[in-house]
């Protein structure tokens, strides 16, 4: 009898409270980010994939000095030097093993030529290990830099009509 009354008390006084708590949450917005469709804004200091920079005329900044490879705690960088047509030293082979890389950014700090940068991209999943061995060709920024088509059109118009570019 005692148990019966106690249970009835629970049903009448305590269960509705629980129901109210959960139903309140039904009308709140989901906290989920629908990831591939809506991406989180990345911090400007985020260290993603590597880029190899160029000079404005398109020659590579990297001189294959090996400081990045020396600074790399994960030993992920391998390079072999060669001499260009102009007689300058540059990398013949420059590989970063992204599976070894811990994205610490030490290479970026070590580089005396400001040639290597860590960008914002973080989606490089693949289905075989070999494709994570990135070479110079994978990392070099394209030349000329690919801006959005609108900017390219403006640049073309400027060139044709001789309008000076104030941003430079």
């Amino acid at each position: 009898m005692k148990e019966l009354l106690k249970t009835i008390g629970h049903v009448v006084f305590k269960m509705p409270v629980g129901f109210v708590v959960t139903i309140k949450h039904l009308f709140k917005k989901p906290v989920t980010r629908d990831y591939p469709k809506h991406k989180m804004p990345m911090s400007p200091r985020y260290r993603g994939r590597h880029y190899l920079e160029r000079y404005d005329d398109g020659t590579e900044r990297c001189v294959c000095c090996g400081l990045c490879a020396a600074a790399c705690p994960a030993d992920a960088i391998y390079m072999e030097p060669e001499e260009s047509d102009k007689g300058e030293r540059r990398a013949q082979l420059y590989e970063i093993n992204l599976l070894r890389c811990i994205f610490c950014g030490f290479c970026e700090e070590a580089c005396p030529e400001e040639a290597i940068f860590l960008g914002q991209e973080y989606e490089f999943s693949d289905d075989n290990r070999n494709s994570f061995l990135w070479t110079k060709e994978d990392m070099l920024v394209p030349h000329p830099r690919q801006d959005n088509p609108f900017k390219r059109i403006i640049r073309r118009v400027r060139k044709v009509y001789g309008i000076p570019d104030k941003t430079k």
Partner: protein
Amino acid sequence: MLEAVIISSAKILLLVVAVLTGCAYSTYMERKVVARLQHRMGPTYAGPYGLLQPLADAVKLIFKEDIVPSRVERVIFALAPVISFVPALLTFVVVPFGPEIELFGHTIQMVGTDLNIGILFVFAVTSLGVYGIVLAGWSSGSKYSLMGGIRSSAQMISYEIGYGLSIIGVILVANTLSLRELVDQQASFGSWMIWRQPVGFLLYLTCAIAETNRAPFDMPEAESELVGGYHTEYSSMRFAMFFMGEYANMLAVSAIGATLFFGGWHGPILPPVVWLVLKVVAFMFFFIWLRATFPRFRYDQLMNFGWKVLFPLALLNTMVTAALVML
């Protein structure tokens, strides 16, 4: 004769298709509603708002490998999912979903078959479903499955009595066992059975949740304790049968609840079938809401609850109702 066969076949086909689609979309509804209650989004990828998710699930389950462990009792192992699924479908045969209609000069009753002992049939058939679970648990040859099966049988013993007694009050008031007549008696909002049998309704609801193994009485499954309970060893379509059986059972219990206490298909403006579906959806929403709200009962708590609370309360309700009817 031939006409009767054709009409019956058409009705059965309609019912089966409706129930299977209902099962599929109640999984969708469950996932969506539980997700929203937990600040998640639920399925969004398959089709607009993830509406094709049940279809994707079905295709996935069909193409899964059908694994039969070496230590199972093969015949019973194969039979158990069917035993748990078919009774759930059978229940819908007696649920009325509309008034009589005239079609090509025939009077067609909008109910699978108008049994004069409809309620008795429902309760006989839904109880059969438990055998599927018990046999699945026993034949799997796995300790988790066996535990699930045993829990299910214990749960059934504790709840079946309260379940049966909870509707005796309704029968006493209505003075009929036919679901069609019951619905006819509840034509207006004021004559709904829930106003005359509120305690009976609460008892029915509680026992129905236990009967369908829903949270917080989902001990036979108890993912966190028993892996998957009775269906641990099942895969592919055999598992899907259990899954569909569970949802079909929920739908059945909702439909019977709507018919017994909420006037079945009666309602203004909208067509009768829509009203029944709306009432069933309301029930389903409550089940999902309940699942998102309360944690699972412990084994002994459940037995205590069944025997010391539900059973006496159901008896009391029956006695009081009987006395009032006599007066």
